[in-house]
């Protein structure tokens, strides 16, 4: 893999949602519009054949980034570029739109319950007119085999499958438009661990065989570590740490990343011996509607000082990792 072509690039992307109450109630209560800043000036780049993971707790904006990346939402600010073109321009061309697809979290909601599996998998093929007639069914059988199902499974309806099998159908559908870039939004968090292992292994096999690029979104750090080359840690709509997975897991810079790593229960801790020091993070994630001033992590941060409360930290390079933290920048981190 000598080629390092950028497939998707996000430049200072912001996305806000209007969460105000309906006009009449708002007027009667005398309150203004309320805006939720789900994604705040996020930048990243995904290169061909690699995996970028976004990790964070609920409400950090990672799923919104995923939807922005496939054009389900339009950015409120900044720009997303796909193959060097503005994303909305790229998505207007079927030939480019075909090259992106998405895998979802809930294997029960992501397949239309009234459709046969073969029609579900064939939908992108038909939508992009990639094949016709008998060839469609042959291709569907081939795709089902590729994800570890049998071509005969195409006759069945989604409810006849287990969660793991449905997620395989979901992957087959995503692959059927022959994409290069897949956005995976928590693809295994609804699955049991042994099934999760099947799906993660399958996704990595497919990546090796077909050079697929993943934008992988998860709250599970261990899964993220297993899957990714590049990692972005998100907190309240911002990427607070960004860099190669090995560097971040080996030496986390941002206090939030560190606390997150410390907080994960791990089977290595069994029996009390050999346990990593585990210090629960105090406090909870604040509401993204009225985020704290300055660095949004400061109320929970052990290193916070006056500057952190007043000033939004910029990303600074430390080795091969970008971190948005005053303490890291000033060298107070260690």
């Amino acid at each position, binding site marked *: 893999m000598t080629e390092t072509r950028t497939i998707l690039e996000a430049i200072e992307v912001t996305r806000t949602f209007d969460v105000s109450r309906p006009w009449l109630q708002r007027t009667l209560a005398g309150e203004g519009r309320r805006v939720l800043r789900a994604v705040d000036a996020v930048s990243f780049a995904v290169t061909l054949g690699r995996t970028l993971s976004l990790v964070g707790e609920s409400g950090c904006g990672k799923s919104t980034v995923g939807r922005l990346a*496939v054009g*389900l939402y339009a950015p409120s600010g900044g720009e997303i570029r796909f193959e060097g073109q503005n994303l909305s321009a790229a998505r207007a061309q*079927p030939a480019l*739109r*075909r090259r992106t*697809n998405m895998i979802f979290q809930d294997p029960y*909601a*992501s397949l239309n*319950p009234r459709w046969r599996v073969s029609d579900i998998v064939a939908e992108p093929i038909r939508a992009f007119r990639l094949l016709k007639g008998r060839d469609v069914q042959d291709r569907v059988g081939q795709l089902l085999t590729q994800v570890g199902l049998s071509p005969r499974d195409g006759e069945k309806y989604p409810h006849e499958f287990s969660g793991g099998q449905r997620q395989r159908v979901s992957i087959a*559908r995503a692959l059927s438009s022959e994409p290069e870039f897949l956005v995976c939004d928590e693809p295994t968090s609804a699955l049991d661990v042994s099934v999760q292992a099947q799906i993660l292994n399958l996704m990595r096999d497919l990546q090796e065989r077909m050079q697929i690029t993943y934008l992988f979104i998860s709250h599970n750090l261990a899964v993220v570590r297993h899957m990714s080359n590049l990692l972005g840690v998100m907190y309240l709509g911002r990427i607070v740490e960004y860099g190669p997975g090995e560097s971040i897991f080996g030496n986390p810079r941002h206090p939030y990343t560190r606390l997150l790593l410390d907080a994960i229960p791990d089977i290595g801790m069994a029996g009390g011996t050999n346990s990593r020091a585990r210090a629960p993070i105090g406090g909870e994630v604040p509401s993204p509607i009225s985020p704290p001033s300055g660095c949004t992590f400061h109320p929970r941060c052990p290193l916070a000082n006056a500057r952190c409360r007043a000033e939004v930290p910029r990303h600074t390079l430390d080795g091969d990792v970008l971190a948005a933290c005053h303490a890291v920048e000033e060298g107070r981190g260690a």
Partner: protein
Amino acid sequence: MSAIARWLDSDVAYSFRRSPVALMAALVLAIILAGAVLAPWIAPHNPLDLASLNLMDSRIPPVWDAEGQRSFPLGTDDQGRDILSGIMYGVRISLVIGVASVIFAIVAGIAVGLLAGYAGGVLDAVLMRVADIQLTFPAILIALLVDGVVTAALPQEMHERLKTQVLIFSIGISFWPQFARTVRGSTLVERGREYVMAARVIGLSSGRIMLTHILPNVLGPVFVIGTLTLGLAILSEATLSFLGVGLPPSSPSVGTLIRIGNDFLFSGEWWMTIFPGLTLVLLVLSINLLGDWLRDALNPKLR
């Protein structure tokens, strides 16, 4: 497995076999339907054929009465028409109008509901406020109003020719909001589901997503409400005919028969109105009981 065998094995079929109420209702409905559908072949007389009427046969009581005649099992009316045959033909007309107006209400309701639920925003607000306003009036009032307006707007000979269609339109219009609201609610839920997002990611048009993805998934409740509304629609038609704004006596529905008979109720000729009335009650009751059963059978929470 064939489709029929699969259906017989399904949970819905099982629940049907296990429900005595549903079985009884289905039996009663089947008898009434058979009588209505086969009326031209099995009815003793043809009440629409004016030439066969004989005033000598008028006001004959049912057959078990001392003055009854075997050729008129349920007696005759003041024109000498056979009551049983009148009911059989009347149910035909009532059913056609009921079913057609419910289909009209379903089609209109689905269209409005899908559009409002999928598009959201101002369109949704406007359509749903219209539905809300209409729901504050009794359906029969709306049907009366629409019937009156349309009849007045059409030229005389045209509205006589189109009386059935006008009736279907007026009754259908009075029931669309229930369907629109239900479909809109389901559409809002389905629109947020990930399979709809998957279709949007590959760039399908909104129309195609609504028709191929959302529509099949919102039909379940529509069938249930449709069944229950059918009972109401048949009653609406009967009420309108009873009030005299429905079908003319020349093509009498069950409601018309009840109205005609009503004039003779106090002069002792009770059979003219009681038998059509009883038929109407049985028809609507069995449809409603089946609708109730269907609602429970399709509700996974009660299974």
